[in-house]
């Protein structure tokens, strides 16, 4: 057992830290981390940030050098996430493009697709969304109903997508469609690289319970795509989907480190906020609850370290790595639930009136998305039960 980083890894960290200090938006490190509210400025701010990352060589470190990456090792990727969480860096607007679409195209895209898209993804010139879920296809993605029908050499697409992250900012969409009806539910699915800038594509933002608008409904009405837009083979989109999921190598790193940081901030609150003249932490109920959360949050991080170790030794993640998402998202929810409880009635105040942190009430509300998005906790439990414990498959799966 060894938790130390190598000299090379520490040098990497130092280089990134130095670069961030110079290149983060003005005032960011000093705590001025407000993002522009209106869509246009928000989009420009984030695209500029990605451009800055690109120019520094920090936009897609895990990519191969030939595509403009750094061929980063898994440990370097983890350090990267640690440092980005530490400075609470602005979000990566093209997360889907960089971590999912481009690596998939590198593996199974045509030369023309690589040529056309990969560099634009890296620079932030082209922002991507992911058209998966539909009103009738959430946890059960195979129930999708958006169709693509070939007419006069072009594909005509009709249907509705929902929970489409970044669609309001995106130029392109990694779109899942049905191109044929098959008895087998994983067949007949085709992935298109859809141009969002056309008449047949309409995007409507969805307002979340925390007031943010991070995802959208996308209506497709006779939207047009070509054969050249297909990823992999027609009708074999499920294999593309699986390939894309496997590209998420460092997986849950950012959420693990964010959870740790959020826990520290709740501790800070308990050490500084007084109720009835007494610090929160001096209340045995608060102390007990926080010590319990400390054990479990630290445990989740250590689980992640154990899974990384498995990947380093075996070249691929072990089955237990599928536990990380479930644990971290559930713990995030529990942490903020407890943080709300201990603030007393003043916990209902938010933003600048908040007891401790202007962000905490919003983080509490946002935590409810964590156990739904990217596979609900229930679906995660099914998968773990079946793949790791070998329990019989759920009805309908």
């Amino acid at each position: 057992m060894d938790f130390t980083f190598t000299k090379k890894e520490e040098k990497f960290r130092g280089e990134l830290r130095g670069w961030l200090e110079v290149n983060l938006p003005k005032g960011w490190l000093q705590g001025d981390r407000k993002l522009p509210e209106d869509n246009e400025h928000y989009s420009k701010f984030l695209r500029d940030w990605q451009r800055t990352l690109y120019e520094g060589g920090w936009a897609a470190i895990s990519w191969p050098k030939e595509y403009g990456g750094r061929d980063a090792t898994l440990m370097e990727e983890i350090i990267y996430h640690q440092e980005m969480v530490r400075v609470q860096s602005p979000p990566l607007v093209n997360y889907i493009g960089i971590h999912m679409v481009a690596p998939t195209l590198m593996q199974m895209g045509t030369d023309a697709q690589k040529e056309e898209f990969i560099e634009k993804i890296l620079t932030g010139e082209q922002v991507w969304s992911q058209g998966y879920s539909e009103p009738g296809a959430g946890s059960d993605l195979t129930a999708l109903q958006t169709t693509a029908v070939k007419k006069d050499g072009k594909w005509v697409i009709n249907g509705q997508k929902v929970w489409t992250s970044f669609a309001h900012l995106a130029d392109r969409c990694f779109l899942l469609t049905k191109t044929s009806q098959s008895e087998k539910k994983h067949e007949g699915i085709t992935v298109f690289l859809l141009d969002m800038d056309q008449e047949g594509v309409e995007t409507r933002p969805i307002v979340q319970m925390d007031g943010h608008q991070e995802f959208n409904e996308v209506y497709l009405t006779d939207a047009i795509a070509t054969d050249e837009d297909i990823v992999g083979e027609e009708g074999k989109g499920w294999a593309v989907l699986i390939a894309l999921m496997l590209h998420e190598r460092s997986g849950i790193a950012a959420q693990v480190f964010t959870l740790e940081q959020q826990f520290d901030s709740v501790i800070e609150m308990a050490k500084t906020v007084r109720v009835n003249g007494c610090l929160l932490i001096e209340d045995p109920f608060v102390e007990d609850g926080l010590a319990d959360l400390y054990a479990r949050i630290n445990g989740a991080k250590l689980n992640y370290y154990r899974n990384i170790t498995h990947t380093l030794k075996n070249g691929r993640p072990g089955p237990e790595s599928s536990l990380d998402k479930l644990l971290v998202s559930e713990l995030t929810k529990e942490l903020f639930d407890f943080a709300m409880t201990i603030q007393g009635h003043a916990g209902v105040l938010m933003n600048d009136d908040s007891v401790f942190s202007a962000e905490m009430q919003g983080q509490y509300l946002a935590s409810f998305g964590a156990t739904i998005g990217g596979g609900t906790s229930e679906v995660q439990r099914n998968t773990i039960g079946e793949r790791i414990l070998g329990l019989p498959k759920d009805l309908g799966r």
Partner: protein
Amino acid sequence: MDFALSEEQELFRTAIRKYMNDLDRTAFARSVISGNLDVVANATSGLAEMGVTAIPVSEEVDGLGLGALDLVPVFEETGRVLLPGLQLETLALAVPLLESFGTPAQKAARLPSVASGESSVSIAWYERDGSLFPNSFSCIAGKTESGYALTGTKTLVPVIGDPDTFITGAQTAEGKSLFLVKASDVASSRMLSVLDETQQLAEITLNQAPGELLGEPGHAAEMLKEGLLHFNAALCSSMVGGMDELVKMTAEYAKIRVQFNQPIGRFQAIKHGIVNMKLDLETARSLSYYAAWAVETNATDKAAAVHSARSFISKAFIKAAADSIQIHGGIGFTEELDVQLYLKRARYYENYFGSVRDSRRATAQSLEWHSTPAKRDAVPVS
């Protein structure tokens, strides 16, 4: 980054597991319940042959001089089958106490026979008020010409497998002090009736029993706390072994038990319940590895690592056993199935040398969450 047991440690685990299978797993625990205590000595000598009893003993006194991490596979595998005996008390508490606070003569007199498996040592700490750190002991150690003589009653003393020595706490002029007392010098002892029948607890009475001072007089609580870091790390491994077996047993049962024309493991109420046990198991295992690593390397967050592990795992072990009984249904409620043995063991360990509340408080204190630690430290936990 390397957060895994070493190849040697994993190989050793395989060997211990094989030996436990040879002993017919929980058959030894059940032998103790039916009154056959010979099995305890058999298992101890078997483990000694494999070198287990020499692991934590330093090389100068015939041990292997290995660390807390090398005990992880041992206690996971013995915990998995609820192996009865004083392995935890001897190897993870008495040995660290003797190694840290014993004189060279005390070590030379006792540790070689521990390393060879001939001797086991128990802890006679609790008194009738049941508190872990009482303000003072009612057991008194009076000075004599050659040393000390102890008089008083100790209870909840583990005596399975006939330990030849007790480490005990008694009151001296300086305060609470630690002593070594020979089992043969105990005046009388009364066996207690225990929920976990694989354990044997006694109330022992000392009447002018010769005691050998261990460490500085007046510092019993601090020394025990230090020793308990080793003990709790090992105890956590033992509980993880038990949890691992519970998850396995329960998942296997859910695959073969058919109701409504299908294996019950297909129902989400059952499936998700077992997955939750698995989640706790993985967290428990990570925390226990880290605790052992922190003890072995004397890491700065050693206390937080051990106490947080203990607080989580004590509770999780009970929950895993309780949920396993429920998922097994009627058969889970019977004596025939092993699940009940795990529940009783989990309950036995819950407050053994510290409660969940104690561990959480100790976690908070070691992480310095309190602005005025001095005031709180004046009142010892429990």
